[in-house]
């Protein structure tokens, strides 16, 4: 703060701070927008790194199967148990399959998959890119006239666009199976009614909503996580060195999780 600012009235100092923060947020949004543009452009630039894409699909997709399996099984079983408990009061156990399937396909599948991938793979991607930034590896790429977006970010982006919808599909199937185990095998709901209800109520529109959400969430989490790592040295209050990477990684997971939840509401409101 310079001398002039120190002697300004408190209200002006407050207005100055708010303005400064607003300018920072706008600059940051602009930076992230340009980052997304170049990352998408990198998908079309030659030579595309196919081996890296396969590696990333393995890391984001295959590597997340275990956590997705347990999350979906537990969510499906809880849905089955609670659904049976609530529906049984009205004698509507026959609706259990429909309730479990619709909740998983339209809502829990895409959202929980994205949150799990953000926690597991998003944090790792952010830390990797952040370390590459602070150890000048990204500068080295630029100096060799290698586009860092095409080389580093685009394969991760495409891998997430492939993996997250597939993981969501796995989540849905395992979740429904968990709901079946809990509702039918444990609580004694009718098996035929469970599947018939599901078949009748789930439409293509519901499936499409789940797929669209999973694509959008996959894009959001890779964009935010890699973007925060890429701009680690430009983020206000992040500090320096290893500390800055840890701060930014935490921030990336929180921001991508919030973004997933906000976009979930928006997409549901628009597409339902």
């Amino acid at each position: 703060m310079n001398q002039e600012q120190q002697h300004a009235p408190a209200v002006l100092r407050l207005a100055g701070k708010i303005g400064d923060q607003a300018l920072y947020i706008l600059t940051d949004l602009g930076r992230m927008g340009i980052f997304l543009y170049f990352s998408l452009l990198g998908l079309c630039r030659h030579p595309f790194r196919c081996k890296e894409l396969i590696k990333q699909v393995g890391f984001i997709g295959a590597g997340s199967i275990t956590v997705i399996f347990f999350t979906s099984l537990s969510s499906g079983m809880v849905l089955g148990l609670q659904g049976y408990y609530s529906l049984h009061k009205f004698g509507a156990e026959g609706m259990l399959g429909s309730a479990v399937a619709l909740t998983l396909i339209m809502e829990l599948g895409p959202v929980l998959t994205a949150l799990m991938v953000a926690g597991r793979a998003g944090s790792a991607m952010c830390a990797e890119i952040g370390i590459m930034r602070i150890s000048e590896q990204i500068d080295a790429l630029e100096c060799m006239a290698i586009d860092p977006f095409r080389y580093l970010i685009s394969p991760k982006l495409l891998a997430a666009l492939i993996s997250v919808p597939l993981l969501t599909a796995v989540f849905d199937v395992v979740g429904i199976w968990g709901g079946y185990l809990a509702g039918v095998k444990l609580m004694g709901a009718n098996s035929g009614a469970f599947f018939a209800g599901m078949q009748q109520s789930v439409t293509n529109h519901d499936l499409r909503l789940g797929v669209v959400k999973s694509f959008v969430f996959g894009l959001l989490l890779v964009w935010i996580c890699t973007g925060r790592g890429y701009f680690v040295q430009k983020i206000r209050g992040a500090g320096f060195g290893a500390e800055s990477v840890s701060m930014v990684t935490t921030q990336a997971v929180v921001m991508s999780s919030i973004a997933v939840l906000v976009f979930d509401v928006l997409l549901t409101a628009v597409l339902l």
Partner: protein
Amino acid sequence: MSKADTVFPEAEPAAIRFAAVSKSFGERARRHLVLNKVSFSVPKGKTTVIAGGSGQGKSVILKLILGLLKPDSGQVLVGGQDIVAMGYRALQEVRMLFGVLFQGAALFDSLTVFENIALPLRERTKFSNEEIRRQVAATLDQLELTGHEEKFPAQLSGGMKKRVGLARALQLAPKIVLFDEPTTGLDPVMTKEIYELFSQTQQRLGYTAVIVSHDIPQIFTLADQIILLNKGELDVFTEASQIPYSTQPNIREFARQVMGLEARGE
């Protein structure tokens, strides 16, 4: 005429030229001026050493040359072309002229030594795998790195990392090689070895070298031209013995404090 000839015309005597370049950092209220309207030229095919204390803007000059930073004002000319106003693609063409050895070598830690050195060839040329293997093997042999191809950067000593960084920097036959603090963290024996390596490779390949270092006065033995920086001021010398006669008071002060040279000509 190749692309490199277009970007780096023969008629232009200076490989790099700074014209009244200013650069500052920090947010408005706490702005710190690092370079204050500095001007100098780097002659083609020669070694220019940029020296000065820590935080005086030496590495900033390298980043400005590479277009990784934009100056607040002034021009940065590479081969006679101002890179400040250049678009992304034109800047990529100019960057093809450079090889860079970073302070910490900036090797990709998930790639082996071989993959690190081969990276610019894989990404920027149409060489076959066999041609890449042959060229990398030749470089490894020249820089005495044969047998270490499959190691990862974390398994190498500081001196070896610098040699791998140099090998990578030289793969695309650069016209200009930039060295950022090349001997930081190395013992005196390794430092001497690295200096010899610079001289040998420069004699063999004839590139323009810009070395940023605070290894004073040893680094001056390599220099055809010396640029000294202190407190935003800059002066250019052809020999270290001229430094005490600088017309800039901050440079004379630097010579007195750091190099133990008595200021003269006042």
